[in-house]
């Protein structure tokens, strides 16, 4: 190893990155070469100056700031991640939202519907008979008069009922 090569390797030597063989050769040369020794000392001094000049005593404080900033940025991006979904997923989500809305609306309708409608079942038992029987009116005073019409469909299990409330005025013969 000559002096030029040793000078090139000095930085790795001082940082402790040289392999054993190279380190031994360099140390041997250092023990003999005064100029190389001075160069080594100068480099050590420069490294010391650089390290003491470029440092941040508030590093620990700033490090927590880094963590907070990065994590809050990631969380805010995650919250807005629906926009990043592929188109197919977006349409599935829309369909699911529509179904959910319909189910909730239907549930609310049956729970909160008016009392007179609640007493009249919207669908009679389809298996009972082909011809639907209108629900019996218990008393004229207690129950509002109503008329129910039924329509058969192609499917024997499905019937359509149409209930008229007492707002329809019937004549005396009930026609």
């Amino acid at each position, binding site marked *: 190893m000559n002096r030029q090569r040793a000078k090139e390797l000095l*930085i790795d030597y001082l940082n402790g990155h040289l392999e054993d063989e190279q380190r031994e050769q360099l140390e041997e040369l250092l023990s003999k070469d005064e100029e190389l020794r001075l160069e080594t000392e100068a480099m050590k001094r420069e490294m010391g100056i650089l390290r003491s000049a470029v440092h941040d005593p508030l590093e620990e404080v700033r490090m927590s700031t880094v963590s907070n900033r990065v994590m809050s940025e990631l969380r805010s991006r995650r919250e807005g991640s629906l926009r990043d979904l592929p188109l197919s997923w977006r349409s599935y989500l829309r369909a699911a939202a529509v179904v959910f809305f319909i189910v909730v609306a239907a549930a609310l309708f049956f729970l909160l519907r008016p009392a007179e409608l609640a007493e009249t079942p919207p669908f009679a038992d389809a298996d009972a008979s082909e011809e639907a029987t209108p629900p019996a009116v218990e008393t004229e005073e207690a129950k509002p008069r109503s008329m129910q019409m039924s329509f058969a469909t192609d499917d024997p299990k499905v019937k359509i009922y149409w209930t008229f409330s007492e707002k329809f005025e019937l004549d005396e013969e009930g026609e």
Partner: protein
Amino acid sequence: MSTEAAVDAQAQPEQKTTERTEKLLAAAREGDEWAFEELLRLHRSAVYRLALGMLGDPDEALDICQDVFLRFFRSLRRLRADRGIRAWLRRVTIHRCYDILRAKRRSRDLKAEIMPSCMHPEDGLDMRQLTQAVVRALDILSPRERAALILTSHQGYSSIEAGAAMGCRSATVRVLLHRARGKLRKALGLVAGELV
């Protein structure tokens, strides 16, 4: 204790760290927020110090840190092993700093005003003068010379590691370091004569 046993004993903590990083990396890939935060905690100081050395401004170094770790998060699936992560972080940090240095072309006076805020309050006037002189001297260097100097002389990386971060050979790093030291000595000459 035999030599082999001593080497094994030295290698064990490094192996444990690597294993831990691997586990954290795997968990972070699965969306574990805590694991990612732990990886961030492990590597944030190295990234910050490198960015501070390159830019000289704590606020800019913080911005670089944030940007680098957000890129790190997006690249989680591509990264492998502890050493791979460290090398990747160094490379990305250096190249982000290049961008900043090239884009801003800041004046030396501006940097000299910013850097003393990084000093210990108990530091004397000599330290302040020295810091300002070093900052001015660093500003003379080209981004690549500065990177070679900071990576090796300030951060203590080998010329091979510095070359990997800068995207060049270790021999190029040594040449850049030689040039940077020459400029630094010249710039610090008067102050160094008075202070050191």
